């Protein structure tokens, strides 16, 4: 459905085991676009408190093929709702340790409120729609991280448009 709607924002997606450089991606995003007055960014990191004391790493599994497509759709959906000039998403996969960066979202617009809101929207949808799964590694084994109800609620507050489109198989 989204494929039929023209989206004018530049959208670039990376899914990679490689780390990203926020400054470099910021410079690439604003390069030569003098209509950009506001750039919001978000960087998510692996934090110690997120993990039990014996957890020493995270592993991020994903669904190659669907992952980039779903991130592109989320960015396009944001660009339909807010007047964005550019969106950049970078999500890492594979093994990560405390302090490592997991995800970066950059949103550029003429005005700050569009940049802020689109950025938060993308993160909320990414957390509930993009096919990534976290596994915690401890000294004795590994366990899958459970989805959080608060992430589902956060995504749902952006109205029902997208959830109706995608459907849902449960109410967790």
């Amino acid at each position, binding site marked *: 459905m989204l494929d039929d709607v023209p989206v004018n924002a530049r959208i670039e997606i990376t899914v990679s085991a490689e780390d990203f450089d926020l400054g470099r991606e910021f410079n690439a995003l604003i390069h030569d676009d003098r209509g950009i007055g506001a750039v919001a960014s978000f960087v998510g990191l692996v934090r110690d408190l997120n993990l039990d004391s014996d957890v020493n790493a995270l592993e991020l599994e994903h*669904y190659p093929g669907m992952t980039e497509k779903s991130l592109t759709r989320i960015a396009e959906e944001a660009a339909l709702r807010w007047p964005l000039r550019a969106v950049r998403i970078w999500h890492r996969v594979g093994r990560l340790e405390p302090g490592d960066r997991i995800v970066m979202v950059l949103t550029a617009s003429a005005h700050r409120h569009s940049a802020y809101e689109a950025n938060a929207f993308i993160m909320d949808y*990414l*957390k509930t729609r993009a096919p990534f799964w976290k596994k915690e590694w401890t000294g004795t084994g590994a366990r899958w991280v459970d989805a959080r109800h608060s992430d589902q609620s956060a995504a749902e507050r952006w109205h029902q448009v997208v959830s109706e489109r995608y459907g849902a*198989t449960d109410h967790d």
Partner: protein
Amino acid sequence: MKTLHLLYFARLRERFGLERETVRCNDGTAAELIDRLIARGGAWREELASGRPFRIAIDHDLVAPDAPLCDGAEVAIFPPVTGG
């Protein structure tokens, strides 16, 4: 008969001991396919019939259980996502 390419991820992949398989069936919807998998019993029943949440994607789009299945479709079944 339809040919369906099934994929499993994360906890479901580990519980089923299976990453992917190809099945031939006449199921009309994702829900009918799920019922067929539940009938295998064991981990399949535990994961798909006990109220534990899971998601279905057909050809890379998240869908509701009543979504129709087309011949040649890629059907992925996985736990609620936890990225970001």
